[in-house]
């Protein structure tokens, strides 16, 4: 296989994986933007979305796959959205005025609770129904599979939809206002609590969608499947500039691609994560607020 074909194939691998990271990273970044907290439990929402999607698909084996899949997406996204809102009300809202790290600990606790709840339900791998027709398209020496195309298209559509929502709708503007200055937004009459709930809902539904896409791609789900992708997606969100939505998308894609190219071209593939994290550290040294993060003027 010549070098160009190899690079192209690895690039597609990387972009596919990266777009899943990007969807999850959006959840982290949106919550951080509005509450300045790291929602550690987001990786478990990703996992719950996968399980919810699996449940839906298992219950409707007869339906044609586009309908079944759409149904799985919608139900999982909504279910996870409301789960996230509940978590916020119970575990984060009481801590809005607390010391900065207290909500983080609460989030860690929620993450442990959700993971172990699922462990008690099923401690092993569960096969994810493979509803997508598998097709490979060969272009000369490199190939793309239908699942990769579907993932790329879905992620881009979801990210595009989010972009439109955040920048061109009233609610989006309200969310942006709350992110910029919560007190001022409240004074302007924006129902801040509702905006926060909405943010959690959107972030979680994107995470759930990512969970389903991830499970379609890899074929199986497990109670601890959220841990590693969650950590990587959080890294991606920070890489792009935490709180910045296009930054999270860019960070996710960049992380996925660097992992892929690292696996392909490093002397030993097992160093790929060192490579990816090293890139992260270098980027942050050169651009301390992340790739697209704004240098916030510090108020004196």
């Amino acid at each position: 296989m010549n070098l160009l074909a190899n690079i192209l194939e690895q690039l597609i691998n990387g972009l596919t994986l990266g777009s899943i990271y990007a969807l999850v990273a959006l959840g982290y970044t949106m919550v951080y933007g509005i509450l300045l907290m790291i929602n550690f439990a987001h990786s478990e929402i990703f996992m719950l979305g996968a399980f919810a999607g699996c449940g839906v698909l298992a219950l409707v084996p007869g339906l044609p796959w586009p309908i079944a899949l759409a149904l799985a997406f919608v139900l999982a996204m909504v279910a996870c959205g409301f789960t996230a809102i509940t978590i916020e009300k119970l575990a984060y809202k009481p801590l809005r005025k607390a010391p900065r790290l207290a909500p983080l600990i609460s989030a860690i606790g929620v993450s442990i609770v959700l993971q172990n709840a699922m462990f008690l339900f099923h401690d092993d791998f569960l096969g994810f129904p493979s509803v997508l027709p598998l097709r490979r398209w060969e272009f000369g020496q490199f190939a793309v599979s239908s699942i990769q195309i579907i993932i790329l298209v879905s992620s881009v559509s979801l990210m595009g939809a989010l972009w439109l929502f955040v920048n061109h709708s009233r609610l989006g503007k309200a969310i942006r206002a709350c992110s910029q200055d919560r007190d001022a937004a409240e004074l302007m009459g924006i129902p801040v609590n509702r905006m926060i709930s909405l943010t959690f809902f959107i972030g979680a539904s994107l995470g759930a969608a990512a969970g389903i896409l991830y499970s379609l791609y890899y074929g199986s789900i497990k109670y601890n499947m959220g841990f590693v992708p969650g950590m990587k997606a959080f890294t991606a969100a920070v890489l792009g500039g935490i709180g910045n939505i296009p930054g999270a998308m860019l960070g996710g894609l960049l992380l996925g691609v660097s992992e892929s190219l690292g696996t392909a071209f490093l002397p030993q593939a097992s160093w790929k994560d060192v490579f990816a994290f090293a890139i992260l550290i270098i980027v942050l040294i050169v651009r301390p607020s992340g790739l697209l993060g704004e240098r916030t003027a510090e108020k004196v």
Partner: protein
Amino acid sequence: MRHQFKIRALPLAAFVVFALLPPILQNSEFSYVIRLLGLVGLYMTVALGVNLVVGLLGLLDLGFMAFYAIGAYSMALLSMAGMSFWPALAAAMVIAMAFRALLGAPVLRLRGDYLAIVTLGFGEIARIILNNWDSVTNGPKGLSLLTNANVKPVRLFQWDISTNVDYYYLILMTVVVCVIVSERLKNSRIGRAWMAIREDETAARLTGIQITRMKMIGFVISAAFAGAAGAIFARWESFVTPESFTFWESVMLVAMVVIGGMGSVPGTLVGVGIVMLVPEILRNLLGTSLVSWRYFLFGVALVLVAVYRPQGLWPSRRLSRTTDAEEAAK
């Protein structure tokens, strides 16, 4: 005056209780508690280091276990080369501090949560290097000190340190030293500078505090705690593998410090105790069939503590918003 006396009596009493436990427990069916408390003591040492960085300085550090690992591997490799325990301990601490300084130099000017990610990244890098660098660290198979003839036994003057009880006392001494150092630091100019940085970095800079220098001091001293703990652990277990040093352990260290009370030394000790002993106690209470519920309940407990006592279970007195006069009035 009476107030101060009361506070000093408590640590002394606690010390006496812990010092007397091994003779009481040694030959009973609870002898395993000695090892358990030894592990708790090691984590207390590390957590006191985390407390300097996370609790006093307010910097979120998600990769602290890397320095524990560096301390452990340094001790293992130096022991296998024939170095005896005490010089190797000092060397392990210095090596951990050196790596920390190396990491800190370029990244300490990063804002809070960006620094967190960098520490996470470094923690992962360290773990992967330890797992992959087979020629030096033996990779996932780990380093076994037991079957290596070069390894010298651990001795302090005439005292041979080899059993669980011996290590318990060594760790107890270490914890006491670290507690004293932490309290001294906290009440010194450096400690106050750290807390000022934590509360409001801009204001601290305006009062003349050299921010980066103070952060670096905290960063490096904390690594000494972790390195020492790791080194002792390496000799105690006689076996080091990369599996013990995961991201999750670093996260739990932060949790220990925060639920204990940020910046508070007794709070940190309490936090360690709770995070490590609650799953153990739940294991006993729940019995064999329900043992998988352990961690679920632990998570619930964590959320409850965070929500109902966000300032921590034993917060630092300096942090409390009420003054002494208001307290007396209650």
